[in-house]
């Protein structure tokens, strides 16, 4: 079919001058088609019959014949293809099916967040994910079972990160996802005195109100996190001796996780992969918290498309190591502009830039190459920058 079309590209003489839209071109009625279906005719047979009974098919150009076939095939002989899930396919699917759930974050914006935040092996990535876990899952995928993704939240209960179930993460990768309230992370900071905003908002906010309109297309699964968090905290503080020089997970931490696996293992599809128990979102060990307090997180990603981010970011930046990059996503421009301005004034970050990706897909066919007629016009805004060390101790003048 393709070759035939290619061959005719140069010398197509037909056009649409004789085509009249009077709904008489097709001789098969819908009853005829229903009858064929009842007799068990295959989709391809129906398409062939439709072509044979179309009085105008032969008069169409090869291009429009091809288009006609494809359209009918889609209707009567749909095909599905099974694919391994990945950040790309998960984000594309949510963006198409329920974009509000992921704060209208297009796949190119998500890709940019991951690059701008320098997500790579052994990173300790601090994440605020109010897009259902899309970002947490994508970071965990890039970490590949090394480093940590620490998902932090305001208030007392974490926002849902259900979407990470879609990533088919191995238990190694899942164990690298931890959740900690922002208050806990900040209270470890010595410099935690100025951030009154945070204290207020913690008290005021309570359980996270989801201001993003949520299309609940998915069966929501119960969140095991609430109970585990407290259990885990008690447990780990009992079991683990305070070890200051900890750099990477110790055996204790591993054991701890194994102990707990019965609590929050829900083996999403039981039969397939037994090892793939879900135990994401545990509280980090006190040693881990201490390590982060002293060394800082390697980078930060914020995706809170329904929130004001300025004060959020002011509290989060001190948690980063010096020279750590960050990327803030938003569906609106104003909150990022305000945030960028206050960072410029406070001189806590450099390399500040707001960018908006623009993505256009093309139809590439012989003699028919052009951009898609329909495109998505908006995939979100990103504010990126680099945290700096703003003590003046670096004066090089003697």
């Amino acid at each position, binding site marked *: 079919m393709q070759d035939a079309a290619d061959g005719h590209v140069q010398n197509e003489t037909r056009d649409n001058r004789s085509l009249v839209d009077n709904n008489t071109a097709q001789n098969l009625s819908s009853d005829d088609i229903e009858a064929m279906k009842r007799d068990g005719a295959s989709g391809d047979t129906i398409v062939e019959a439709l072509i044979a009974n179309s009085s105008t098919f032969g008069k169409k150009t090869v291009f429009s014949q091809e288009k006609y076939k494809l359209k009918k095939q889609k209707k009567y002989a749909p095909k599905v293809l099974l694919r391994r899930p990945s950040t790309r396919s998960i984000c594309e699917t949510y963006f198409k099916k329920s974009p509000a759930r992921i704060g209208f974050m297009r796949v*190119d914006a998500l890709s940019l967040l*991951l690059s701008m935040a320098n997500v790579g092996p052994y990173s300790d990535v601090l994440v605020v994910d109010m897009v259902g876990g899309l970002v947490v899952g994508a970071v965990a995928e890039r970490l*590949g079972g090394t480093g940590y993704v620490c998902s932090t939240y305001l208030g007392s209960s974490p926002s849902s990160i259900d979407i990470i179930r879609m990533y088919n993460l191995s238990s190694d990768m899942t164990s690298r996802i931890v959740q900690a309230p922002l208050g806990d992370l900040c209270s470890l900071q010595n410099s935690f005195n100025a951030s009154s905003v945070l204290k207020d908002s913690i008290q005021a906010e309570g359980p996270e109100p989801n201001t993003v309109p949520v299309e609940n297309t998915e069966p929501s699964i119960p969140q095991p996190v609430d109970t585990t968090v407290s259990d885990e905290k008690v447990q780990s503080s009992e079991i683990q001796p305070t070890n200051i020089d900890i750099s990477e997970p110790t055996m204790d931490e591993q054991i701890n996780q194994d102990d707990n696996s019965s609590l929050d293992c829900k083996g999403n599809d039981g039969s397939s992969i037994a090892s793939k128990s879900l135990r994401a979102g545990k509280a980090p060990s006190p040693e881990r918290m201490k390590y982060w307090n002293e060394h800082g997180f390697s980078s930060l990603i914020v995706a809170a498309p329904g929130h004001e981010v300025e004060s959020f970011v002011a509290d989060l930046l001190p948690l980063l190591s010096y*020279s750590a990059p960050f990327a803030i996503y938003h569906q609106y421009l104003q909150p990022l502009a305000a945030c960028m301005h206050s960072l410029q004034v406070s001189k806590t970050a450099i390399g500040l830039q707001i960018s908006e990706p623009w993505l256009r897909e*093309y139809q590439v066919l012989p003699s028919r190459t052009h951009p898609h007629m329909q495109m998505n016009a908006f995939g979100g805004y990103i504010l990126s920058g680099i945290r700096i060390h703003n003590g003046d101790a670096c004066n090089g003048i003697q």
Partner: protein
Amino acid sequence: MMVPLNPSAKPTSQRRIAEGDTVVVYERHDAMRAVAVRAGGVLQNRFGVFRHDDWLGRPFGCKVYSTGGGGGGGRGGGKAGAGFVHLLAPTPELWTLVLSHRTQILYIADISLVVAYLELVPGCVVFESGTGSGSLTTSLARAVAPHGRVCTFDFHEQRATSAREDFERNGLSSLITVAVRDIQSEGFPEEQRGAADAVFLDLPQPWLAIPSAGITLKQDGVLCSFSPCIEQVQRACEAMRSCFTDIRTFEILLRTYEVREGALKGATDNEECNAGPLPQKRRRLLPPAKTLDGIQNSSSVMVRPCSTAKGHTGYLTFARLRVHGS
């Protein structure tokens, strides 16, 4: 070390700048350069003279002042009229902005889409041709580290050598193999059949290399071809149709925005407004509510797209190797 290969190699607040480190010297968002720190070393720029010895032992991300001689007051006019710069830990994103251009390079928007659509994760094996200046290669290495591999090929011997040196300096040689080879005429090495999770082509005639890319890829592996011209894309897509599926072509661009605090004149106000949206390049950032004359100008943060932008970089065509028997 740009991509940590073990947990202790990542930059943290405890890490200090040491001899041999590469630092990115940040003057402005559009003026940066990579510098290898060495004892006795000196950096001279329009802000003055900076001695590497003053940098040793400082944390990454710190601000350092010149020892005087800064031209025209320097930036910010810090201590004693000396200029200053920031010393940053190198990342693949910063590297893209500071590397020496031996060829046209890929920038962050294209790079991030390539890495996402090639579905690269730690442990993957990815083949690339040509190496060019190594901008994309560095990001590919981060994506597949610590146990994956990037095999990159360029037919230009000198370019390959320079790229190899760069990767060595950035601590990436255990992740990246650079080879001199003309992929368009010779194809990828035969012995690498079925070895690649992903293949990236940035070649003038990508269609010549596509059959070889098909052989080098694992089943279901993803191919990407980057071409600036649509005619190249057209021929590449034709070559892909025989053994690839899910062929999709994209163009990605970034629009950037500038932010400024100011006040607009009221409809009835004819007086000169000191903070109007005039094209002042680097307006001093005043703290809010500090307007002159005590006039209650409601100053606000305003944002608009930057006037200049890249209009085109290239088309990215992605395709997936068909699984046999489907």
